[in-house]
């Protein structure tokens, strides 16, 4: 910035807006305009529709308190998100720990395996789970032929199926922040704790676990917020029977043309995300969590 300012010392007077110089604003202007036009404006429109359709007022929001169907959508969503986040965290923690403890060569391959699913379309993966979990799928066939069960288990078109698909999708998002926090831990700390008399379990509980807390919080926030608005996996593995918020919004707007209810749910979803972030921001320092401050 100093170079720009010194290059045009006279032609560009140092006017300041919101604490930044004019030339600085010029640089980010394209991004700001793009965000305003294609993000802030439609979002405002959504907000506007939610309080004007079908008639002006907070009628749509009232339904949130009165309609059992809407409440069921939200409780289902929250339940699935909590379950998904919990399972993803535990599984991700184990994977991240294995990654950190692996020798460098093996670690590269393990990373490829963790990240590979990210390059495969979420749609393909959801259908892959359908073929595995449906009543004539591999899992049920195997269990039937082994004689473990007499009739196929209902593994999809319900919350179980959704949770399986979502956990699968979310694991890399939990592994990466957890791995980052574990990698920064001095590898001598756990041996030091054991040398001082702590058992393996105590060394983990008193030293390793507390030091990975920032990673746990980051992974929780990331996975939970992602899960809240997840659409493709719940739509396919839920089979239209178990509705989560995102699918419900799509149903209201595209199929039932009830823009008012759809945009109201979208707005509540946004509020829910902001509330989750606000809660976690009270617990931890986000700027530190996402690496902009040490």
């Amino acid at each position, binding site marked *: 910035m100093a170079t720009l300012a010194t290059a045009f010392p006279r032609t560009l007077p140092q006017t300041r807006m919101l604490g930044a110089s004019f030339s600085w604003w010029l640089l980010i202007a394209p991004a700001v305009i793009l965000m305003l036009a294609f993000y802030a404006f439609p979002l405002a429109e959504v907000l506007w529709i939610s309080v004007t359709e079908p008639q002006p007022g907070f009628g749509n929001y009232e339904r949130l308190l009165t309609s059992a169907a809407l409440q069921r959508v939200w409780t289902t969503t929250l339940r699935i998100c909590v379950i998904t986040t919990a399972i993803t965290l535990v599984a991700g923690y184990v994977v991240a720990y294995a990654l950190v403890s692996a020798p460098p060569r093996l670690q590269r391959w393990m990373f490829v395996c963790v990240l590979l699913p990210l390059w495969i379309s979420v749609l393909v993966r959801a259908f892959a789970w359908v073929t595995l979990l449906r009543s004539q799928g591999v899992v049920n066939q195997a269990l039937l032929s082994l004689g473990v069960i007499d009739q196929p288990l209902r593994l999809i078109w319900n919350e179980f199926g959704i949770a399986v698909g979502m956990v699968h999708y979310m694991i890399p998002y939990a592994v990466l922040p957890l791995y980052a926090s574990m990698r920064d831990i001095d590898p001598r700390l756990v041996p*030091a704790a*054991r*040398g*001082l008399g702590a058992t393996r379990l105590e060394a983990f509980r008193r030293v390793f676990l507390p030091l990975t807390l920032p990673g746990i919080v980051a992974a929780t926030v990331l996975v939970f917020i992602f899960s809240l608005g997840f659409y493709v996996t719940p739509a396919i593995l839920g089979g239209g029977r178990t509705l989560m918020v995102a699918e419900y919004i799509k149903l209201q707007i595209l199929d039932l043309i009830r823009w008012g209810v759809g945009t109201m749910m979208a707005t509540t979803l946004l509020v829910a995300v902001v509330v989750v972030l606000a809660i976690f921001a009270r617990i931890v320092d986000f700027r530190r969590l996402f690496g902009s401050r040490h």
Partner: protein
Amino acid sequence: MAALQHSLTVRHLAKHYGQTRAVDDVTLTIERGEFVTLLGPSGSGKTTILMAIAGFVQPTAGDILLDETPITPLPPERRNFGMVFQGYALFPHMTVAENVSFPLRVRNVARADAERRVAEALDLVQLGHLRDRRPSQLSGGQQQRVALARALVFQPALLLLDEPLSALDKKLRAELQVELKALHRRVGLTFIYVTHDQEEALSMSDSIAILRDGRLVQHGPPGVLYECPATRFVADFLGKSNFLAGRILERQQDGFTYAVDGARFVQAGRAPAGEDVLIALRPEKIGIAASGEAAPNTVEGTIIAWSYFGTSFALVVQTAAAGRLQVTVPAWRCPVEPAEGRRVRLAWTADASVPVVPD
């Protein structure tokens, strides 16, 4: 305090990693209350031995005994040894006091008792005023003291130290060497100290075990190791040495004569078997003699390089008979003005040098 002292015996200890022998048949006895240093270059196996004593490395073969009790199968947390790691390994999420009380908390020591012992341990290292700080807010020297207090607070059977001073600057290191030695005297525990710094080893230890390529080369008090190195490696690693490869000409009762490139020198002590002999000669034991001055061993040469260290001059002298010799002479009233190309006459006594085993 004496009741707390323990001896440690390492018997035929070996640790192999595939084909590599990190430790190869090391037998070593550490006496009660001794300050022992395991000294060697990197890759000599000194840290592996320490880790085997601490219980972090399971030996391929051999035993470790505390007094007479074998401890080889015990996990680290059941050995009750204090350990100071390289880089200290303080817990960054705990305060100084929490770090020091950690060993007491995992042992379920009663709160009041624990607090008293933490205060005592912090006083021992003069850090009582910093108890509520985090390790990241401390200087390197202070962190080192916290690590010491944490390793001593639970009255361990031994204190193991893995290059605890290597991260500090030279001046601080010298100060902490003195402190560590005083601490050893005060607590009376057996200390096992690992370092690659020979000065550190010489200044602090009651005895030094020199290791090379996983093997124990020589074990003894610092003075004995310095004055009578057994092998060429010890003579070269502990301090500096010049080496004269000669041939024995004549054996007397209290010494022998040997020849190096035609020049004759005398050496005190018993002659080794065989004809060939390798003599180690410390640079500071060579003097500069005036021409005509009588001395048992003399050699003429030319100064080809020199440097000044305040207390002394280090000269490199090219001689016809003995090759290139390193000579250290006190700078105060140095008999010659060092200059490149100047001729000097070097002299040393028959007991200044020592025959060593070539290795």
